[in-house]
């Protein structure tokens, strides 16, 4: 029966090629704009999260900060240094199951790296293997620190791409892997080089936490505590967690409970949530714009269908006389409407996706200077399968809506009146 219906629709649409084409264009245009807008929006968000996302980690970092209020006999302006007590609290039973993968870094020590007559400055930081994942450190060559490095207190290090370039005297940074670099009186073997952009001049060199503690700092002082969270979901959850956690740390260090400084919590989760929220708002705004455009297309289809129905009244009279039920007529008109909308809508969707590709190849390749680094305007401006499916569903719904009123009119007309119509 579907095939028959399609044949019916085809033979009527064939009758009015120009009209069908004009109507279809309105729908194509609507969907085209919707897809192109969403694609550009996605490109913008991808660019944003791609660039900013490099620095946002799925983790919480806690560091000491200068206090801003006097408390308990201490003057304001005291520098807080995290230590083993904070680490014990963080890993303690209070947060069991919520705080996971706790790592720490040591404070940093400046050093001069020397190899083969070339020198470059750097900051040594003692780190743990998990540091890589928590701070999204991308490796350009070699590996990051591992557990054996820590256990055996190996004298190995991971240097930055820019340092490697300077030491290698060119782009062939691979050859630095395995080289021994002297820093002061101690030589370290390079096991890895982390990726840095053209504009990124980070100078941190990571050595095993235990190695650092043994050589540069045998106190229990910590530079930072980093951990992942398994519990808070919403922004409010995270706020509550931060309040409770910082209150405890403030107690440990005699910081005024209402001091907004003293300790600094960088919560990558909330940053991600904020960004997702921004992305959502942009998405909704673009959908609304696209839908408004599509509405004009739907009104167009509805309008044309109304005229068509009026012109075809006599034909419907014939159909009814020979046995077409009102439901048959209703189905016919709505399917015609859905067919026009779907076919032209799909064409528009395809063109929209092509437009996204064109955007990718043109303005997508442009870089914009945002001060500390350069970012690409659009990264991979495209819509996903989900949007394509949503748009398909939307087209079917739109076609039905456009067809309902004309179809209702056509189905309701009495056969004798319809037969009289010319």
């Amino acid at each position, binding site marked *: 029966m579907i095939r028959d219906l399609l044949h019916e629709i085809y033979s009527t649409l064939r009758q009015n090629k120009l009209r069908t084409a004009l109507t279809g264009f309105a729908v194509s245009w609507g969907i085209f704009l919707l897809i192109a807008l969403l694609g550009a929006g996605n490109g913008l968000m991808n660019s944003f999260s791609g660039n900013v996302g490099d620095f946002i980690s799925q983790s919480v970092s806690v560091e000491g900060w200068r206090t801003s209020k006097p408390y308990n006999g201490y003057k304001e302006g005291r520098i807080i240094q995290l230590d083993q007590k904070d680490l014990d609290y963080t890993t303690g039973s209070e947060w069991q199951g919520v705080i996971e993968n706790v790592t720490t870094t040591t404070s940093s020590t400046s050093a001069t790296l020397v190899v083969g007559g070339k020198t470059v400055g750097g900051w040594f930081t003692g780190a743990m293997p998990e540091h890589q994942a928590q701070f999204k450190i991308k490796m350009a060559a070699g590996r990051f620190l591992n557990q054996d490095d820590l256990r055996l207190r190996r004298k190995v290090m991971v240097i930055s791409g820019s340092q490697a370039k300077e030491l290698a005297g060119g782009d062939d940074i691979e050859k630095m892997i395995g080289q021994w670099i002297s820093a002061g009186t101690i030589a370290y073997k390079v096991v890895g080089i982390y990726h840095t952009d053209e504009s990124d001049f980070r100078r941190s060199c990571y050595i095993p936490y235990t190695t650092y503690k043994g050589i540069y700092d045998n106190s229990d002082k910590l530079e930072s505590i980093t951990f992942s969270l398994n519990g808070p979901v919403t922004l409010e959850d995270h706020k509550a967690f931060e309040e409770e956690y910082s209150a405890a740390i403030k107690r440990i260090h005699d910081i005024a409970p209402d001091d907004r400084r003293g300790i600094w919590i960088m919560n990558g989760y909330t940053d991600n949530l904020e960004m997702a929220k921004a992305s959502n708002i942009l998405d909704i705004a673009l959908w609304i714009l696209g839908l408004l455009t599509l509405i004009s297309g739907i009104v167009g289809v509805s309008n044309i269908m109304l005229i068509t129905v009026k012109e075809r009244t006599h034909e419907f*009279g*014939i159909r009814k*006389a*020979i*046995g077409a039920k009102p439901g048959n007529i209703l189905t016919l008109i709505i399917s015609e409407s859905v067919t026009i909308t779907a076919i032209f809508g799909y064409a528009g969707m395809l063109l929209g996706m092509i437009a996204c590709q064109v955007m990718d190849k043109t303005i997508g390749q442009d870089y914009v200077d945002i001060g500390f680094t350069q970012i690409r305007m659009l990264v991979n401006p495209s819509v996903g399968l989900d949007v394509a499916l949503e748009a398909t569903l939307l087209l079917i719904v739109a076609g039905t809506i456009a067809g309902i009123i004309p179809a209702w009119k056509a189905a309701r007309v009495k056969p*004798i009146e319809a*037969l009289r119509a010319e």
Partner: protein
Amino acid sequence: MALIELKDVNKTYQGAQPLHVLKGINLNIEKGEFVSIMGASGSGKSTLLNILGILDNYDTGTYYLDGTLIKDLSEKQAAAYRNQMIGFIFQSFNLIGFKTAVENVELPLYYQGVSRHKRRELAMEYLDKMGLTDWAGHFPNEMSGGQKQRVAIARALITSPRIILADEPTGALDSKTSVEVMNLLSKLNREDGMTIIVVTHESGVANQANRIIHIKDGIIGKIEENDKHDAWGAELIK
């Protein structure tokens, strides 16, 4: 029971000036009859035909078609009865212009949900009976009036209806083609036993029927038995 039984059927068109078009019609038509209904325009003959064809409702009285009471039907029910029991032939053919002859003939079966293949087979069979096999793929505007009316007859016959209702079937045809079409209808009546009701104001056409019902001012006047086909005006068609 007769195939068609009308008892005291009344119909008034409501409006600023209500118009009482049918004023108590009593009529029985047996299976296998060839009846013509004659009357001047405004006599109510078209309204009667519309009621017989379940295209219109009536106000009071009863109408039994093959034992089924046809009264206050829903649009859906009416459509189903029209589809199964009645074959229409119209003055202006009423073929669908963008469908070929065979597609037009198939259409009533489409609404019965008959499969595509079966439909095509039956439609070709009926077109063949009408001598239009070669014209199956043509559109109505490529055919002559006589051919179009024969396509319409094939369409009316394809569902094997109880009655054929023809509303001025020769009104748009020249005299020679008129004779051909009327002969075709007589032949259907004689050989296949098809019950046929023709509404016309041409006495020559009416004369083909076995019974001529004259309707005037909404009531049935004279009913002529016409087995010999010698009613007045018969010479007009000869």
